[in-house]
């Protein structure tokens, strides 16, 4: 009996070690130049489609192997970066700050886009967020998302209590949230971004009662590019090539609108006229500039979404001192 | 005892028909061929008798018994009990199967006996039903095993419990489909004796299917011999030996031999 027990423990440990060994080995062999980038779905990520289509990173660093991954939510991107499966992730500022607060070794490399982000309602009776009743439900992607933080900001401004509407929230991803809003059952509001935002507003009776800029009180970058310290410090040439590619992509979009629209229409599988309409929206802008980080950080720290906040912007954006 | 015996003989003389089969047929159709299992069977069953249905396996004796029970549909013919056509199983004809697993395993022995009594509202209360059940368990000599579950009983005890369960409903006819066929020889003899005792005490009519000539001779008042080839009853032999019967007694071998000769047993086969 005793020997059997000991034997089974040994076997068990053995397999455990093999497992651990495998994952360690997987990391060891990636010495070749490479960059692994995660994006999410939406027009806010448009320059990345240009980089992909025009192979801009390869143009700047010919030997590099580029891997693109589309992930469903920011939490997955964060975990993949922690596990050293990704070098670059694109996300909104609040999820980045949550990771930074938890000690992740990453910083913002660049901005990517500003985008309309707004709360759409399907009821005539709701003119502002003060009109929500206990029966109403507000759909948004997830707690801690930029939409959630923006709603909390608006609540704090009105009631001094950012959690005032938290018990009305329903977590749904953008497509499900849109369906729920249009179905007009319990969900009476949806905090969302294009193309869902535009599609929803095309339906009769849908109105926008709050937008992001209004909630934060200033303009902000909707999606930022975040890279690991490992990429920035160990592979500066890759990092530089990536940033140059992004600049070129944004320039390309400015200078070649026709081809841009063609590429984006194919990438997102929507009509060219529609792409054009979205890109012409005044709040839709692509730029590497990063805005609004400190304002988000102030609010999030004050209300316990994060425990610490950056003393200055250099703490969360890569600069020369980090090299 | 002597009185009971007389009673039985008088019953035989009386010959009140309790079940009457006229030209009962049952076929099995398998793709192209039609298998005649029962072909125009005529048979009268008398009140209070033990009738053995004897034959080799595959002769249709179980099929005939199931017809009488009302389990199966028939092609043609009429089957009357007390002047009413038999169309479905009824409490007045209770079947006892060969399979030991006819008791409900999720009920104790006494619950097995009480349950049909409750369903048929035999006793006025649950206590009354329990009293009845205990009485019949005593009759089949199972006192002390009321609260056992069937899986805790031997095969012989299970068949005894099945008999108690059937008899408690006071059926007019007990249909027994080789009930002792899977028992060892000694237990079988014990149960045969028990059956005779019960029969004498209750006066129930018994139709007893068996392929064992000895069992048929020991138990029955008449033996209906069935054959594989004929799909019917070859002959009904009266068996008027005095009870209790003992193998090898005067007259025993005569009847045994008579039955044997009808059984198509070919030693060269």
């Amino acid at each position, binding site marked *: 009996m005793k020997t059997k027990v000991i034997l089974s423990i040994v076997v068990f440990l053995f397999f455990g070690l093999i497992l651990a060994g495998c994952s360690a080995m997987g990391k060891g062999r990636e010495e070749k130049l490479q960059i692994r980038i995660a994006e999410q779905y939406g027009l806010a990520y448009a320059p990345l489609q240009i980089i992909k289509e025009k192979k801009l990173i390869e143009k700047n660093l010919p030997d590099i192997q580029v891997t693109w991954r589309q992930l469903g939510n920011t939490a997955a991107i964060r975990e993949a970066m922690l596990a050293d499966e990704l070098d670059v992730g694109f996300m909104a500022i609040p999820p980045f700050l949550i990771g930074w607060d938890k000690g992740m070794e990453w910083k913002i490399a660049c901005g990517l886009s500003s985008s309309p982000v707004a709360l759409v309602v399907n009821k005539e009776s709701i003119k502002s967020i003060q009109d929500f009743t206990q029966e109403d439900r507000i759909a948004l992607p997830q707690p*801690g998302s930029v939409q959630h933080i923006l709603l909390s900001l608006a609540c704090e401004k009105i009631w001094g209590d950012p959690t005032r509407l938290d018990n009305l*929230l*329903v977590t749904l991803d953008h497509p499900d949230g849109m369906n729920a809003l249009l179905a007009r059952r319990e969900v009476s509001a949806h905090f969302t971004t294009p193309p869902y935002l535009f599609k929803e507003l095309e339906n009769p009776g849908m109105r926008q009662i709050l937008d992001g800029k209004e909630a934060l009180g200033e303009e902000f970058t909707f999606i930022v590019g975040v890279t690991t310290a490992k990429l920035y410090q160990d592979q500066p040439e890759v990092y530089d090539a990536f940033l140059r590619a992004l600049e070129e992509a944004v320039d390309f979009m400015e200078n070649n609108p026709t081809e841009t629209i063609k590429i984006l229409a194919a990438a997102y599988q929507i009509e060219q006229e529609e792409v054009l309409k979205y890109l012409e929206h005044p709040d839709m802008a692509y730029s590497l500039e990063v805005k609004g980080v400190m304002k988000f950080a102030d609010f999030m720290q004050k209300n316990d979404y994060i425990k610490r906040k950056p003393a200055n912007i250099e703490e969360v954006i890569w600069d020369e001192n980090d090299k | 005892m002597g009185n009971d015996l007389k009673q039985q003989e008088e019953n035989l003389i009386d010959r009140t028909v309790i079940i009457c089969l006229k030209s009962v047929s049952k076929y099995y159709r398998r793709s192209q061929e039609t298998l005649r299992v029962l072909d125009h069977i005529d048979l009268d069953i008398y009140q209070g008798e033990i009738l053995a249905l004897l034959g080799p396996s595959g002769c249709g004796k179980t099929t005939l018994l199931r017809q009488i029970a009302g389990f199966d549909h028939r092609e043609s013919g009429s089957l009357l009990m007390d002047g009413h056509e038999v169309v479905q199983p009824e409490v007045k004809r209770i079947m006892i199967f060969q399979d030991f697993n006819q008791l409900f395993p999720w009920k104790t022995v006494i619950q097995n006996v009480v349950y049909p009594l409750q369903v048929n509202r035999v006793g006025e209360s649950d206590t009354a039903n329990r009293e009845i059940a205990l009485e019949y368990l005593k009759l089949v000599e199972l006192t002390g095993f009321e609260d056992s579950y069937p899986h805790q009983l031997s095969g012989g005890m299970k068949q005894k419990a099945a008999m108690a369960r059937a008899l408690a409903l006071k059926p007019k006819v007990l249909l027994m489909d080789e009930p002792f066929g899977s028992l060892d020889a000694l237990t079988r003899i014990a149960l045969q004796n028990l059956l005779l005792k019960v029969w004498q005490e209750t006066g129930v009519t018994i139709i007893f299917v068996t392929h064992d000539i000895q069992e048929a001779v020991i138990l029955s008042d008449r033996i209906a011999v069935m054959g594989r080839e004929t799909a019917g009853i070859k002959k009904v032999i009266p068996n008027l030996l005095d009870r209790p019967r003992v193998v090898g007694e005067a007259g025993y071998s005569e009847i045994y031999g008579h039955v044997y000769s009808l059984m198509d047993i070919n030693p060269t086969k």
Partner: protein
Amino acid sequence: MKMTNKTSSYQKIKTRLFWVIVILVLWEIVAQSGIFPAAIFPSLLVIARALENSIVSGEILLQTAFSLALILQGFLISLLAAILVSSLAAGNKMFNGLVDTLAAIAHPLPGIALLPLIIVWFGTGTTSILVIIVHSVIWPMILNIMTGFKAISPIYKEAGLNFGLNRFQIIKDILIPASLPYVLSGIRIGWARAWRALISAEMIFGAVGLKGGLGWYIFKQRVFMDTPGMFAGIFVIVLIGIIVEDYVFAAFEERTVKKWGMI
């Protein structure tokens, strides 16, 4: 006989405990080795502290109660519906065919795949989670119960008919107890599937209000990167699973089919 039962269940608990400890030790070794960053593979102590915090604050208890209430409802609805449907199917060939076809279509379909439809039809509240649970549980249950009905020795049914039982009594007093071993295994499979469906549905639907169940609790810890808290939630799920399997189901089995000698 009672003695051996006791010792065997004691033995079972001992083996269970032994392996649980081995797994925990292995976990701690991996956590301490630093193969994975602590932010995704925290040590047991950190997890225990997170569990303690969430118990003290009452949140994890609240969410667990919410999940348990939902799963019990969904489970009972499914069990009753499955018995009803299987019983009807047992008595009617056409209906049996329909149920069989429906089960063949719906059984392999994950409830989550139906999410967009469910949201449109039932909204995003507890009703939808219930629908997903019922969908996940009812088909394996129906299939098991129907198999159980088919496997019943015809003698039980014939004996029942002979005793003058009506259809309802045959189903209630014969078909169901006689197929109990199958019903039980259906219940076991159903329970496991119900848990999975519940947790995934809660993760996707999130909270309606502050109550979103254990799945929601885990998801929330994840989005705020509270990995120890996430594992605390997972621990509670595992704990409930083991308790239900080792105590509730095993005890029920001990008192029924095992006592009756049916398995």
